[in-house]
């Protein structure tokens, strides 16, 4: 599929899969060297940016996020902004104020979240790279559900300038693609220091030379609670890894079970402060009743345009920061983050990566998701949250398919700044893995 034919078919592709919230109107790729899309919480100068939230409808940024400007400078053409859970709040991309992307392997199932539209675009469109953002698993989860490769690099590796914050201490920008080799190619373009994001300024050089993965550790806590089919597919994949010369050990990582509650305390606390800026002035909707007092005006606009999950997380985060409760749980959550980091460092002293399935089940049906409680939905992230709270780089590869033909993914986690070993194992894996493209008809 040439770039021009992608541009010509973009609207028809989107009508079927709903991966894009905003699209380029161009019907030709012009002199672009490659096409890419970006999650809609990354600001783009020529396209409305809403982060999946109705409160930002009509927001046209005056600047590009650093990652987008770097890709444009390298010859990339931004073709669309992808649908996502509102501000990244979700596991299935169903918590969107706009369109919900559909899984390329079964339109009645979810793409995963919160970078669901990005994974969908990477899965459906040939030779397409999409920028995703991960706070608690939002790159690897949808990559797993949509049968593609995805990397969330070390926290601080890619500048967050131009990213609409969810949780500042957790957000990471990464790459999703059908090809493992694309991850390194495009990460190399977007990584690096940026004086506009101080957390990017301490990073060591970005290593890209091949470094064979020699050993992985599988935490016992990472293979509990799996669906039978994911368990079976993962078991076969581990055997395949062994045949590729990778040593496999089983280890205990007792801290992992505390990562989930710590994550939700930290993430919602940060989110509730970040979202305080959306009050119906300056960005998005501004048509509230100006005769109201400011407290009432802010409340009117926020109550009208924030979605259900955004309200839930604002309430949770506000409560978590309040005196009394905050003293107990917020401080403890920060300490647990360090405990999890220490646990990874201990295991990674003797292994190149920690390995587990990316998600405990394959992409669920929309009707099953609608029956899940908030807590059940949060708990689905238990395999992706630990690496995210630790800020360690993690990469999901497609590793097989269940009896319905739905993709299963497995996730490698390396030590801080060691993306190189993740790229290498993904490229080795790609050489022997029989990737089944979704059947696409538009």
């Amino acid at each position, binding site marked *: 599929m040439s770039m021009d034919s992608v541009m010509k078919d973009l609207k028809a592709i989107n009508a079927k899969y709903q991966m894009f919230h905003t699209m380029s109107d161009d019907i030709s790729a012009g002199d672009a060297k490659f096409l890419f899309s970006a999650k809609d919480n990354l600001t783009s100068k020529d396209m409305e940016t809403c982060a999946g939230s109705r409160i930002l409808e009509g927001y*046209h940024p005056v600047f590009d996020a650093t990652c987008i400007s770097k890709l444009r400078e390298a010859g990339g053409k931004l073709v669309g902004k992808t649908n996502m859970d509102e501000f990244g709040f979700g596991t299935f991309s169903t918590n969107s104020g706009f369109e919900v992307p559909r899984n390329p392997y079964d339109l009645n199932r979810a793409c995963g979240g919160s970078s669901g539209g990005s994974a969908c675009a990477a899965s459906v469109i040939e030779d397409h790279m999409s920028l995703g953002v991960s706070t608690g698993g939002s790159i690897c989860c949808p990559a797993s559900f949509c049968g593609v490769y995805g990397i969330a690099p070390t926290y601080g590796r890619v500048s967050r300038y131009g990213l609409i914050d969810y949780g500042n201490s957790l957000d990471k920008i990464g790459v999703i693609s059908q090809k493992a080799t694309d991850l390194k190619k495009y990460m190399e373009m977007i990584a690096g220091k940026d004086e506009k994001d101080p957390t990017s300024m301490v990073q060591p050089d970005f290593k890209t030379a091949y470094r064979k993965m020699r050993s992985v550790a599988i935490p016992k806590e990472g293979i509990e609670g799996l669906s039978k089919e994911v368990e079976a597919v993962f078991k076969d994949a581990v055997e395949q890894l062994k045949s590729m010369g990778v040593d496999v050990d089983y280890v205990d990582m007792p801290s992992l079970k*505390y990562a989930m509650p710590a994550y939700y305390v930290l993430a919602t606390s940060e989110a*509730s402060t970040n979202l305080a800026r959306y009050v119906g002035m*300056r960005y998005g909707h*501004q048509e509230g009743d100006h005769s*109201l007092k400011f407290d009432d005006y802010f409340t009117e606009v926020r*109550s009208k345009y924030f979605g259900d999950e955004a309200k839930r997380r604002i309430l949770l985060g506000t409560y978590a920061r309040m005196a009394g409760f905050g003293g107990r749980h917020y401080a403890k959550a*920060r*300490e647990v983050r360090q405990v999890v980091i220490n646990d990874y460092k201990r295991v990674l002293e003797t292994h190149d990566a920690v390995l587990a399935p990316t998600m405990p089940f394959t992409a669920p049906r929309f009707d099953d998701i609608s029956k899940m409680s*908030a807590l059940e939905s949060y708990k689905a992230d238990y395999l992706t949250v630990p690496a995210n709270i630790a800020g360690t780089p993690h990469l999901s590869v497609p590793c097989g398919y269940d009896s319905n033909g739905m993709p299963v993914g497995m996730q490698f986690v390396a030590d801080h700044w060691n993306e190189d070993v993740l790229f290498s194992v993904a490229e080795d894996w790609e050489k022997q893995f029989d990737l089944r493209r979704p059947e696409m008809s538009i």
Partner: protein
Amino acid sequence: MDVKTVRDVAKFAHIALTDEEAERYCKDLGDILSYFELLNEAPECGERGVNPILVEDIVRDDVPKVEFDADELLRDMDTYDRYVRGPRLS
């Protein structure tokens, strides 16, 4: 968690809740906060970083410049005479 607390938190967060929402969020938050109790038994290490990596304070040179055109910034905002319009303060 009780409905009154949910309403107090919501007021603080500038969110108005219907009765149905207050009841629903009360139950959800109760379930989630009970789950957070798991943190009480988590091991301790005596360190509480703000970021997962060590971050140094690095400041850029203080060079005056115009980064964005003011009119471009105001383009999507509700303005009058280049002031942003907002609600009453009192």
